[in-house]
């Protein structure tokens, strides 16, 4: 799978991120492959499970920021909704939103494994 295919498959915006990186495919590729190292998603799931909603909020916020930088629009959108659902109080639909985030996150992690070697 090419980088562009990967972006299309995960509901992400390849052209957008490419232009932000000054047109350098190398940089996009480098940081997309670093994404699994980022612990914010895993820590978000953990914190939510432990009902530590303050940390969960912060991690959702961080995940959203990382997705913004990488052009992962779909995951960014669900992370953003979860962030708002956890801001100040815990909204009723927070558990559903968390599952959406988990789904979108897993989709990216899976797709990454199919990415062509450079």
């Amino acid at each position, binding site marked *: 799978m090419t980088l562009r295919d990967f972006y299309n498959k995960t509901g992400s915006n390849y052209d*957008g*991120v490419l*232009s*932000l*990186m*000054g047109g*350098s495919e190398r*940089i996009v590729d*480098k*940081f997309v492959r*670093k*994404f699994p*190292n*980022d612990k*914010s998603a895993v820590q978000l799931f953990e914190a939510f499970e432990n009902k530590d909603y303050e*940390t969960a909020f*912060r991690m959702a*916020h*961080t995940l*959203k*920021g*990382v997705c*913004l*930088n*990488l*052009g992962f629009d779909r995951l960014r959108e669900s992370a*953003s909704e979860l962030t708002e659902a956890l801001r100040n109080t815990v909204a009723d639909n927070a558990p559903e939103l968390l599952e959406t985030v988990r789904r979108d996150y897993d989709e990216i992690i899976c797709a990454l494994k199919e990415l062509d070697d450079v």
Partner: protein
Amino acid sequence: MEKILIVDDAEINRELLTEMLGGDYNILEASNGKEALTVLQDIGPEISLVLLDMVMPEMDGLELLEIMGKNGMLTDIPVIMISADDSQETTHRAYELGVTEFIRRPYDSLVVRRRCQNIISLYSKQKKLVGLFADQFYEREKNSRLLIDILAHIVEFRNNECATHVINVQSYSEILLKEIVNQTDKYGLTEKDCMLIASVSALHDIGKISIPDEVLNKPGRLTDEEFKIMKSHSAVGSQMLADLPFHREEPLVKLAYSITRWHHERWDGRGYPDGLAGDDIPIAAQVVSLADVYDALTAERCYKKAFSHETAIEMILKGECGQFNPLLLKCLEIRSEEMRLVKEGGTQNIKGEDDIKEFARELLKNDALYASDRLLHLLEYEKMKNRFFEGITGGCSFEYNAESKLLTFSKKSADVLGISETIVDPVHDDSLISVFGQEVLKEMSSMFRAGTPQNPITQLYLHQVITLGSGNGSPTQSFRITSSPDIKHNYPENMKCSTYRLICRSTWTLEAPQRFTGVIGKLVPSETDYGIMKGVDILDIEGLL
């Protein structure tokens, strides 16, 4: 290379920013506000820019910003806040707290690079300007002082009075003025006024240029007629200034006029030339007048011997030299010790560069241009801290700079060890070799270098072995070094050993590859086997404690 501190809790974001900034900067990273604060406190002045995330654990962006503001760090360290869709409220708050700019997520590499570049160059230009201003100001101030001093000395020279009279009057005036400012604000004296008064005080006797030699330098009592001529110097001097064809409206000239004319007036109106009383006499003239009298009393003149400081103060307080403003007398009493020190110290330094810098700093502060001020302040704070800790913990502390090969002891340590405070190339220094011996010195030196950036602290034990001479022979000493404290030697009757712990911390550059830059260290008595022989006057390390 300019240093940029990136503060973000997501490592991937920090890496991305680092990538975008390219290799043009030296990048430091912190994952929350607390870590960032540690870096800032450590090497704040070296940092050219902070890129700051908003939401972080431990301490978030706004909290860090607030602390930086309170510590004055924001004056010379610009902060760019990174934000996504943060609320208007947060954005406004960040601006209120003193953030310089924002970068919005997602990062655009070109925008990130340009914005950082622009802000760094803007700030460095401002810093350069402040430095330039301070230098220029210092230079100008120095020159005008020089001119005033030359002029004043020409007068003194003719007068055969003690050559330091002018300088002393300046110093005494300054001391008194400082205390007046402490006591009251009724005279509205600013730091600038005080500086000006002290420098212009040098002109108080210019009128003496018109007094004939035989009166001016007459040993013994003056006749009534001669005294009248002598007394004319204040009116004549001020007239000279009033007759200047130019600059008459300058504050300096006006001030010089009042000091020259009224420095022989007295609080009760019994002075000359105008018989002014109380605060009708300008405060500048009152101060110079008292400084002049104190110096005249404590210096030897062609018609009298010098009085001691104590006698002079007593005479002034009793009104034997005319009445002075009671407030001024109070200031004199409070600062009496300082006056005595100046008198005894013989103030060769007309005006320490320190004073002028202090003044320049004051000015800069008032003009809200104090970028380099914080740096100076930090330095002073560090020095004070060191002196304080040294004062309470005792021991012999030192610093070694690998680049300049300079070994520096604290003053106290140097005094006790009987060596100079700074030693160049210590391993080959004769005075150190004669104290410790070549072998021991070499071992110490290799120990200095045994530290690593990861493991910078090393320690060893220094044993001072003293051998008593037989009969009347004087005792001798030698040193040995070991890595553990508890080597129990069975010393013969005539030998004693004291053990000291030598603890060193090596210092390294921050950039990779890390280079060894030096060592700081301390010599303290070891807890074990501590017992130095009394009365053996070879190396009194104990005297340090």
